[in-house]
């Protein structure tokens, strides 16, 4: 043992290498979240699992979500749509390591995901002259150089996730066409068709769709369980009320929608802001800032388990037990069953997503 360790270290030193930091190193945050501050500026915060703020970085404009590198304590924080910047952050030091700018004729949607080996970053983008979704590919080893892109399989790709232990990615194509010349005006509501598209090596391997009578339900946010199930949250763009806002799908399977009693469903105001699986994959949690509600669902039965109130709640991420929550009011803390334990933070209006690292 002693000898083995010594010879291993000897080898490292002989090669002139210093072991690179990993996520396990002390000081690395457990979560990332973007926020607005009282003076109107925007920041990105690293947050510890005790909900203390580990670091705070200024952002040039409003942020949205972030993608965590699978190995190094490094994350990429994205501008809110139709933003064109992303920042690569060293999550131990809180320093900016690189900046990404979307190519001419593209803007980011606010989400991205890394390949299993961490060599490639994939970003959801809008080719707005063509009105098509694109997935941009960036080489992490070359200081995040843009190396390619491919069709997202739909319009308005929003969140992208990698399935566990694979290089298969799932993209939520929200279906909504926008063009920066008209701000955030939605251009194609009558004809929108959202889908979930699965990719391997840039090729679609499967597309999951929802019934035609739900075509105005924009699939926007997704979560992936350790078993490879994909939970998705929707945003209703039609008049009146949707029949569901949450669904689940697995490669090769059928889309299953959550059963939500009508009043509880209507309380969500047609809008899911974020979605997460619990650490054990048995529970799906979704937030509605418009309704000020958190719903948890039994992921097996797809039935509503608990309803919890929190004004302007939006960010949600798994904890070893239960979920971590953030709200635009500044509240941050955890949810265990129906029980919330929150701290108010007047210095931060927490933005859309809480990203678990």
């Amino acid at each position, binding site marked *: 043992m002693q000898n083995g360790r010594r010879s291993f270290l000897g080898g490292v030193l002989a090669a002139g290498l210093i072991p690179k930091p990993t996520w396990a190193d002390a000081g690395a945050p457990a979560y990332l979240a973007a926020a607005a501050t009282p003076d109107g500026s925007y920041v990105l915060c690293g947050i510890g699992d005790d909900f203390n703020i580990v670091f705070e970085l200024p952002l040039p404009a409003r942020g949205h979500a972030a993608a965590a590198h699978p190995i190094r304590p490094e994350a990429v924080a994205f501008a809110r749509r139709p933003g064109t910047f992303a920042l690569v952050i060293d999550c131990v030091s809180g320093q900016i390591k690189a900046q990404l700018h979307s190519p001419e004729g593209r803007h980011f949607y606010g989400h991205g995901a890394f390949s299993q080996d961490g060599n490639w970053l994939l970003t959801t983008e809008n080719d707005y002259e063509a009105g098509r979704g694109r997935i941009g590919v960036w080489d992490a080893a070359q200081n995040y150089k843009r190396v390619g892109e491919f069709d997202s399989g739909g319009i308005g790709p929003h969140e992208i996730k990698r399935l566990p232990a694979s290089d298969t990615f799932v993209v939520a194509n929200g279906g909504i066409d926008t063009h920066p010349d008209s701000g955030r005006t939605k251009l194609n509501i009558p004809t929108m068709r959202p889908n979930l598209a699965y990719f391997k090596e840039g090729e679609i391997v499967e597309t999951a769709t929802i019934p035609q009578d739900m075509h105005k339900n924009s699939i926007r946010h997704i979560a992936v369980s350790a078993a490879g199930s994909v939970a998705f949250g929707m945003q209703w763009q039609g008049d009146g009320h949707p029949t569901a806002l949450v669904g689940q799908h697995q490669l090769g399977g059928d889309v299953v929608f959550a059963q939500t009693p009508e009043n509880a469903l209507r309380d969500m105001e047609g809008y899911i802001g974020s979605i997460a699986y619990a650490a054990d994959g048995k529970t799906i949690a979704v937030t509605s800032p418009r309704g000020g509600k958190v719903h948890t669902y039994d992921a097996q039965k797809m039935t509503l388990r608990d309803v919890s109130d929190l004004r302007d709640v939006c960010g949600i991420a798994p904890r070893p037990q239960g979920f971590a929550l953030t709200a635009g009011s500044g509240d941050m803390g955890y949810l265990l069953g129906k029980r919330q334990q929150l701290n108010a933070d007047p210095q931060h209006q927490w933005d*859309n997503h809480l990203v678990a690292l």
Partner: protein
Amino acid sequence: MRHFLFAAALTCLPALAIAQADDHVITDTVEQHILPRFKTLADTSQTLAATAQTDCAASSAPLRAAYSDAFDAWVAASHLRFGPTEVEDRAFALAFWPDSRGATPKSLSALIQAQDPIALDAQEYSQVTIAARGFYALEFLLYDDDLNTAGDAAYHCTLVKTVTADIAATSAAILQDWQTDYAGRMMDADTSDTYRSKDEVRQELFKSLTAGLQFTAETRLGRPLGTYDRPRATRAEARRAGRSERHVILSLQSTKDMAIHLAGSDTALAQRAAHEFDTALAQLAELDDPDFSGVDTPASRLKLEVIQQSVEAIRTLALQEIGPKLGVASGFNALDGD
């Protein structure tokens, strides 16, 4: 004990008075703001279709006047995007704009070139792409230098008659639904399943106010403004008909009326809102730039930017003061939409 009850009764009085007065907010907004606008839209659209039947030439003054009246009526109702306007995507069929990729001129050109017989019948025409329907398509047929004379004259005439008849049918359907069904659903919220409470009705009304203001600021003004380095005069709404500025004025006049209705018994709030609207309208009165082509010159552009800021100030007032009064969540994330 008696003292205590008396004090409680006194302190409750103002709240009770507001609640009672604001019971009228829904009824007044529906009867005085919404129904008259859709009635005017249906009437002027009917006149437009009738005028086109006798006078379909693109340059016809009576046709253009009837078009202007009906389009005015649509803009005044264009923020009321819920219920009857959304059935079968009627509002989109009346108003397909913005058209960032030029689908309207493309689909009209294709119809004209092919002399597609679908344009022979308004009923059939409701099946064509929405980009070729409604007021913005008609603008191309009447005012675009190429499309107003494109193709066979008889076919062009038929197309104008059919598009106007389709507009009239859509507008009549919206009015009928409002009169026979939807007004009741809003005014008797407790007994309809569309809304669960009066609060939900007030929220629907409020959302249409703020969405209307946002559309005017971001799209009607934002599109031609583009960026300082790259203004985009050719993206202005209905610029061929010289209606860009007019639409901003009409939409502000109409949302002003709605904001005052929604402020209800809070006359101080109604006055503050009216003042903000009047500021923007006074700036517009001095602009004199009907098609917003002035965005290309710095001085005129600056005026338009100031107007955009004024509209955003109205929306901020609505979100911060009218929304909370009507029980609408206006949090950072609730307003995000992403």
